[in-house]
């Protein structure tokens, strides 16, 4: 099922939480929804899962509009809301049974589905506990289990790893990756590494508008700009090497990183690469290269660059 968001706008009072956002998610895709806090991620996800009515625009899931056929869409969506609300006074099995019944899963299939969920989400040891007795990580798994129990085609996860410890984060990511092979997943987060690790495509949203739409690679390329190399050259006087580097045609600027270790930061001219020229220089002068590392701009920097204005 494809998800098509068309000119979605939602206001809370005078403030536009989401402003004319349009995008499309193809079936089977894992989309990462990124943005600083308050950017409009949650609002968009709530609109897709039929919880709030947009002021303008529409969302179509598998061709059905959220305004006209919410009941069909709700059946095909598994949604894990932000902060993972659960009935704290129920135990895991009862809770999952309730959700399964609400989804209209046939009675004879319910025990099987519950056991599947308990296994997939790693809840075996805890299954008879009350939800309020579980740690946050386990509660998050229960949240995932309730979102998955009816085997939905689309999974919408709003910040699924907040508040988890590093081990749990890795486990939940693995789980999402596994699920993402079969289902369409939209995942929101403000942690870039997470989105990069799990998603095929990244959508960055800021102040209610989409600022970037592409893969992590494309994103890097877009913001990469000039080639930057971290370069270590030995076998000669540091100042001579510096002079020689500056004289190369393709090089824009050279900085010292560490004079004692003879490390430089070399920035090439636009759309030029200096690697061959540096190598030739070393051969001519009997220098040797102790280090040559292309410096990639981190996604974090790109993210900050895009969302800090």
């Amino acid at each position, binding site marked *: 099922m494809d998800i098509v968001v068309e000119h979605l706008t939602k206001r809370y009072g005078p403030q536009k939480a989401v402003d004319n956002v349009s995008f499309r998610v193809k079936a089977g895709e894992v989309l990462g929804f990124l943005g600083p806090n308050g950017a409009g991620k949650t609002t968009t996800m709530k609109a897709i899962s039929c919880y709030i*009515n947009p002021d303008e625009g529409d969302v179509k899931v598998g061709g059905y509009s959220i305004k006209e056929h919410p009941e069909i869409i709700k059946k095909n969506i598994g949604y894990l809301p932000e902060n993972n*609300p659960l009935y704290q006074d129920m135990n895991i099995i009862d809770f999952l049974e309730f959700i399964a019944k609400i989804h209209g899963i046939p009675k004879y299939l319910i025990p099987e589905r519950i056991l599947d969920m308990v296994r997939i989400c790693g809840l075996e040891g805890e299954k008879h506990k009350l939800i309020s007795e579980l740690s946050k990580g386990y509660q998050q798994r229960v949240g995932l289990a309730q979102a998955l129990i009816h085997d939905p085609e689309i999974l919408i996860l709003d910040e699924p790893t907040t508040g988890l410890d590093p081990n749990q984060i890795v486990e939940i990511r693995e789980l999402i990756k596994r699920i993402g092979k079969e289902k369409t997943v939209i995942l929101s987060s403000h942690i870039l590494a997470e989105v990069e690790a799990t998603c095929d495509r990244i959508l960055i949203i800021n102040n209610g508008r989409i600022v970037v739409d592409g893969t992590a690679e494309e994103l890097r390329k877009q913001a990469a700009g000039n080639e930057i190399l971290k370069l270590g050259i030995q076998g000669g006087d540091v100042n001579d090497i510096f002079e020689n580097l500056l004289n190369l045609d393709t090089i824009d600027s050279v900085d010292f990183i560490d004079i004692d270790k003879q490390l430089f930061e070399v920035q090439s001219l636009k759309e030029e690469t200096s690697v061959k020229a540096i190598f030739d220089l070393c051969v001519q002068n009997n220098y040797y290269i102790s280090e040559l590392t292309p410096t990639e701009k981190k996604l974090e920097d790109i993210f900050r660059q895009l969302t800090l204005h």
Partner: protein
Amino acid sequence: MKQIFHIAYRELNSFFDSLTAYVLIAIFLGFSGFFTWIYGADVFFLGQASLDTFFTVAYWSLFIFIPALTMRSIAGELKAGTLELLLTKPVSDWQLILGKFLSTFLLIGIALTPTLFYYFTLWGIGPVDHSAIILGYLGLLLMSMVYISIGLLTSCLFSNPIVASLTALSIGIFFHIIFDVLAANFVGFTGSVFSFLSLSTHFESITRGVVDTKDLIYFFSISFFCLYSSKMILSSRNLQV
């Protein structure tokens, strides 16, 4: 339709899990039993095989208990965030409201069931006016229906359960007693309007053994109005967090 029952069943279970239901039933039976059989104008004092005392006690205690039961129904779900969980499942707003309504209504039914023993006991010791007693129970159920609907509406309006409960109680007190008092103080058209608005007028007419369509329309229309308003508030999602 099934969704309504699933929601009501879950809700009812949570009443029992949280002891609310046991406390309610214990207090209700304690009060009504005490006044019906032991103290004041009890059955033996009156010397009649009638449950009028019981109906009066139930009339008042349910009036006080119901807002306490309904105060969390929507406000609590909203606060815990579970409203979002429910409404993103294949559940319509109507189904949620009716499920909540049904759960409280069933709980009141469960609380009333043991009092049937009063009826059977009375039957054993004297000639009983069966239709008056059956209609008395009907009146209590109709009255509960109205107060549950009012309680649900205030629970949609206010996110703080205490505020919701007190508001339901103060709206209820108009129907319960104030309209009746006003009716007694006015004559002519105004008086009859207040008399029609007063819940006690309709309750008494039913417990006296007369079921008039006017009374039924009264109970059902107030309930419908409150439930419909609750649904509209829920649908607009203009709930105060």
